[in-house]
C-alpha cells in the first residue's frame, strides 16, 4: 500500500487543511483513493479532470483533490456536470454522489443524465443512509432497518442503483464495495474510459449512524460484512436466485456501445450550419431574414 499512498499524495491538495472531515473508519476515503489510482493509471493530466459533487459526506471529496473541482448543491451535481461537459468536452468529468444525493433529491437528474447518455462518470457511494445529517433513511435503506427517521423500522423498499441505471440508459454500470479497493479502482478506470454515461456503485457503510442505529458494530465489523455478503458476478452465476438476492454482486453488470450526447449533438450543429450556409452573425441575426 505504500506505493499507492505515494501515488495519492501527488493528486491531493496539500494546502487544504487536512485531516479530512470524514469519521475515522469511513469508506469515502477508500473511494477517493480508488478514483486517484484509476486516474493515475489512465494517465490523465490533472488539468483535464473535473470532479463534481453534490451535498453530503461524499460531497466533500472534491476539495481534497487537485483537479478542477466543484462542490455543488444537493442532488444537482449531474446537472452542473452536464453544463460543464458540454462547454468543455475535453474535460473528463467525474461526478461523486451519495445515495440520497443521487437517487432521492437528485433522482430525476440521475435518470435523465443516463437517458441523455452524457459522457460523464457517476460514482455513487452507497452507505444506505444520510450520514451527514445524522442517519435519516435514504432511497437505498433496506426494509425493516432503522434510521433516525425510521425509529420503528423502515417500510419503504429500496432502489436498486445498478438496475435503475441500466433501465435509464447508462452505457456502463458496475458495482463493488469499499472492502474491494483494488477491484473498485479497476472498475472506476473502466468507467472513466467508457464514452457515455457510466455508473459505478461503490457500496460503503456508515458505522457512525446506520451501524449504531442497527447495532452492527464498528467500521471493522461493517467492512467484514461487505466482504462476506458480496460475491463476484462470475461466482454469482452458480447461486440460486434466492441466494443471489441476498448478496452484493460485484463486477461490470452492464456495458453497451452507443453514441454519446455530444457526438449526436455534433450532427445538430452540422445540420444547423448547413441551413445557415456559412452566413455571418448579423446576416443570420436580427433582420437577417430580409
Amino acid at each position, binding site marked *: 500500500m505504500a506505493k499507492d499512498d505515494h501515488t495519492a499524495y501527488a493528486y491531493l*491538495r496539500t*494546502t*487544504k*487543511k487536512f485531516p479530512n472531515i470524514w469519521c475515522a473508519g469511513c469508506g469515502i476515503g477508500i473511494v477517493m483513493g480508488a478514483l486517484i489510482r484509476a486516474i493515475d493509471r489512465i494517465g490523465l493530466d*490533472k*488539468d*483535464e479532470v*473535473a470532479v*463534481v459533487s453534490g451535498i453530503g459526506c461524499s460531497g*466533500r471529496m*472534491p*476539495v481534497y483533490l*487537485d*483537479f*478542477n*473541482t*466543484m*462542490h*455543488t*448543491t444537493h442532488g*444537482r451535481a449531474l*446537472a*452542473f*456536470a*452536464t*453544463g*460543464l*461537459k*458540454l*462547454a*468543455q468536452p*475535453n*474535460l473528463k468529468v467525474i461526478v461523486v454522489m451519495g445515495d440520497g444525493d443521487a437517487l432521492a433529491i437528485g433522482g*430525476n*437528474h440521475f435518470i*435523465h443524465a443516463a437517458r441523455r447518455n452524457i459522457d460523464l462518470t457517476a460514482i455513487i457511494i452507497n452507505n444506505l443512509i444520510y450520514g451527514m445529517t445524522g442517519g435519516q433513511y435514504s432511497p437505498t435503506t433496506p426494509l425493516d432497518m432503522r434510521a433516525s427517521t425510521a425509529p420503528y423500522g423502515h417500510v419503504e423498499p429500496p432502489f436498486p442503483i445498478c438496475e435503475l441505471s441500466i433501465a435509464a440508459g447508462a452505457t456502463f454500470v458496475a458495482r463493488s464495495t469499499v472492502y474491494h479497493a483494488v477491484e473498485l479502482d479497476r472498475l472506476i478506470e473502466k468507467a472513466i474510459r467508457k464514452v457515455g454515461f457510466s455508473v459505478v456503485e461503490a457500496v460503503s457503510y456508515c458505522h457512525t449512524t446506520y451501524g449504531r442505529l442497527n447495532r452492527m458494530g464498528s467500521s471493522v465489523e461493517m467492512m467484514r460484512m461487505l466482504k462476506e455478503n458480496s460475491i463476484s458476478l462470475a461466482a454469482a452465476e452458480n447461486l440460486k436466485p434466492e441466494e443471489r438476492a441476498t448478496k452484493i454482486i460485484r463486477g461490470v453488470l452492464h456495458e453497451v456501445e452507443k453514441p454519446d450526447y455530444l457526438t449526436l*449533438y455534433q450532427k*445538430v*450543429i452540422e*445540420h*444547423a*450550419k448547413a*441551413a*445557415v450556409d456559412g452566413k455571418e*452573425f*448579423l446576416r*443570420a*441575426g*436580427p*433582420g*437577417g*431574414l*430580409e
Partner: protein
Amino acid sequence: MVVRLMQGNEAVGWGAIAAGCRFYAGYPITPSTEIAEMLARELPKLGGIFIQMEDEIASLAACIGASVGGMKAMTATSGPGFSLMQEHIGYAAMAEIPCVIVNVQRLGPSTGQPTSPSQGDIMQARWGTHGDHPIIVLYPTSVPEAFDLTVTAFNMAEKYRTPVILLMDEVVAHMRERFETPPSEAIRVIDRMGTSVPPEWYKPFGDTVGDVPPMPSFGSGYRYHITGLYHDLMGYPTQRLDEINPWIERVHRKISAHLEDILLYREENTEDAKVVIVAYGITARSARHAMKIARQHRHRVGLVTLYTIWPFPEEVILRVGRTARRVVVPEMNLGQLALEVERVVGRHKVVRVNRADGTMIAPQMILDAIEGR
C-alpha cells in the same frame, strides 16, 4: 440598417447571441418558451449548445456548469420555474459564477394564469434565494430594450461575476415592435476577466485585483475549487470569521461600489414635477402615456423609468422625491417596489396604483392617481 417586426422573447434571444451567449439550458414554460425555441434554432448555427433539461433546477445548474467551463450561459423561465431556480441563483451568487436568468413573469402565485401579465416577482427576484446576497435585476419596457438589456445583463454578469436577472412582462415578451438591427460594432460586449499569473499564484476568490477576481475556465490550466459553502480566497470551505467577513464585504461591495455603472434609469420631466411617477416594465409605458396627457392639462408630472430595479436606485428616488408632492408607483402587483419607494421618500408621499388580476394598468388609472382621484 435592417428594420423588422420582432417579438420581445425573440429579441432576448438575439440579444443573448449578440452578447456572446453560446449556451442555453431551459425547461419549457409559458410565456417564455419562444426564447428557448429561438435559441434551439439559432445557437447550433454558431456552434453553440442548446439543451432542454429535466426541470428548471437542472437548467440553471447546467448554465452555471457551462459558465465554469468558459461559456456565456443563459436560461429563461416564468414564475413557477423561477421559484425552482432560487437555489441556484444563490449558488451562482455565492460561487460568483456569471449567468443570466430571464424571468418572463406571469400571474401567480402557483400556476396562476400562464398567459396573463404580472409584475409579481419583484421581491422574489431580489430575495427569492435564502441568505443575503448581491444581485442585479434589469427590466425592459419594449422589444428593442429587451435586446439591449439582454446584452447589458451579460455584460454585467461577466464584469461583476454575478448572476443577473432579466425580468420581463408577458406583454413585452409577446408583443411585436419595430426593431432596427444595430450594427455589430455598435454592440458593446464585455467578457469576464481572465488571468495570466502562474497557476500556483492564482486565487479564484482573491481580492488583489479590485473586487472582482479574474475567472479562468475549468480546463484552462487553472485548477481550483468552487463551492456553495463559505470559502476562503482559494475557494476552500472555511468557518473562520476573518475569512467569511471580508468575503461578504467584497461581494456586496463589488455591486454597491459600481452603482453609477449598474443603475440604469430614465428621467422625463422630473425637474419641475410636482407629481413623479416611478415605474418599470410595461407599466412605465402606461405611465408615459398618462404623463403626456397630464402635461397637456398643465399638470407638472414627471416620470422615472427604472431599467435596473435591483439594486434599488435610492439616490435617484430620493432626489426626485424631495421636490415632488406626490410619488405615484403603478405596478401590476399589490405593491412591491412601492415598499422601497416608501422607504426612501416616506409613506405619506407615495400613492400606489395596483392591480394583480392579469390586466395591464391603463393610463387612466395612473391619471386618476395623479389627479388625486
